[in-house]
């Protein structure tokens, strides 16, 4: 199985390549990708240099152009596709059907991967994208169990990529409106979830209080590990109880199930984290590379290195091991 690794900057890209990535995914410095954070992402020149470096190490580069086009502004997204192809990207990760159609028509030789943001999670949806636009791979939303993935793999005619480590969304990729509800901006349309421009932190005594827009998202007592200031990871008062109404602040880790994922028909394992620093990228990629080469008994010890790098310093297998159903 391929190891698909994140890079938010050229420096992180180099770290990912050097740490053992089979492919590195990244995006342009604009709204066309779902990690449009300040100071992050690649200019055209930076992408060209990074692709050249990856090629010299026999590593592939995937370019994520995975937000949804705005009516009247399609040229931004079309231009991103044209440039990624021109610069030699090995695959384009797309979410918008209109952009997939444009790519299939203008660049039929380009390898098209269906972004997790497209929310293609059943055989009909995936096969439609394969037949209509020639998609070669689908990145599955994090809503399926491993048996679900195995059943799906038998019914579709393209490769499957799944997230195995990193930040975990509320499991409605491409359809989540929580950030948009509070801030007017979303990962789907603007490439930002809980944009930093709307985030505030303050100390209240020994508590760390995080706020998003006009909402208090969480209050962390001294000594408790903190999480991201996203609405889905907020701690709220609901009725008589107080707690995490949507999901706990924790990162995904399903590396204990890689044999089952392989047997289910998964071709590629993806690491989330384009917004993380190069130190994170180097540590996570090298650890996952070692874990892939290790036997099942050695894996937990290797992966335990990464707990402290995870949100809330905890990890979960999420929906892959859906115990609540």
């Amino acid at each position, binding site marked *: 199985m391929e190891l698909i690794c994140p890079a938010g900057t050229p420096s992180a890209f180099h770290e990912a390549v050097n740490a053992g990535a089979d492919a590195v995914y990244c995006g342009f410095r604009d709204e066309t990708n779902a990690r449009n954070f300040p*100071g992050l992402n690649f200019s055209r020149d930076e992408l060209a240099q990074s692709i050249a470096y990856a090629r010299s190490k026999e590593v592939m580069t995937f370019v994520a152009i995975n937000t949804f086009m705005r009516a009247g502004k399609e040229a931004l997204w079309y231009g991103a596709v044209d440039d990624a192809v021109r610069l030699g990207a090995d695959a384009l990760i797309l979410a918008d059907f209109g952009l997939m159609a444009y790519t299939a028509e203008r660049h039929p030789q380009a390898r098209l991967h269906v972004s997790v943001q497209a929310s293609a999670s059943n055989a009909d949806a995936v096969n439609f994208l394969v037949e209509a636009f020639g998609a070669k791979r689908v990145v599955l939303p994090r809503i399926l169990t491993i048996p679900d993935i195995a059943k799906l793999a038998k019914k579709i005619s393209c490769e499957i990529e799944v997230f195995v480590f990193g930040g975990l969304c509320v499991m409605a990729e491409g359809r989540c409106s929580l950030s948009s509800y509070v801030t007017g901006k979303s990962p789907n349309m603007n490439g930002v979830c809980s944009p930093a421009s709307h985030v505030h932190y303050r100390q209240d005594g020994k508590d760390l209080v995080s706020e998003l827009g006009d909402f208090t998202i969480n209050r962390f007592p001294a*000594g408790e590990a903190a999480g991201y200031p996203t609405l889905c990871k907020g701690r709220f008062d609901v009725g008589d109880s107080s707690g995490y109404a949507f999901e706990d602040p924790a990162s995904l880790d399903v590396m204990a199930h890689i044999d089952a994922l392989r047997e289910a028909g998964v071709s590629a394992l993806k690491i989330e984290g384009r917004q*993380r620093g*190069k*130190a*994170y990228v180097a540590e996570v990629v090298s650890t996952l590379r070692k874990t892939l080469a290790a036997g099942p008994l050695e894996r937990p010890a290797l992966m335990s290195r990464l707990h402290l790098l995870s949100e809330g*310093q905890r990890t979960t297998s999420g929906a892959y091991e859906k115990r609540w159903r």
Partner: protein
Amino acid sequence: MRIPPAMAAPFDFLPLFVIQRAVGLVFAQVMARHPALLDRLGDHGAKRYGFLPTDLPLSFVVEPSIPMISVLRRSVPVTTDAAIEGPLYLLLALLEGKYDADALFFSRDLSVTGDMEAMLALRNALDDCDIDLPLDLGAMAGPFGPLVTRAVGYVREQALLEEAPAWN
């Protein structure tokens, strides 16, 4: 690794202009050797950033677009757009991209306040520009450059080694 109070205490008495002069030289050197930092910062280059080491009686205010760094006594209130607070070695490690800022935030080793968009831009810009303090300091030491690079590199190595178990 925190600076022991006995080592930090002299900074209370050392004339501020001496510290300002030394820190200013290092800052100018870093900015000159890493011009891409400003490009990645974009409009956020014009913001004022506070660096507040918890183990030193000093504050540092950086204005990248000028570029300028100001050193103040910790007792003097600073006005900044965004500020980051933590032990000095962690602030320096972040400067070099040796640690992941999100992980240090999760662990509560660092705290941030103010304009988070500006702080995020600075974090990402620093992470990309491959600052290497031993090399940058060595480059300003003339014939003593290799010696300075080795000495500063040794101190950095020891500090990182001391903290390494925290990541396991």
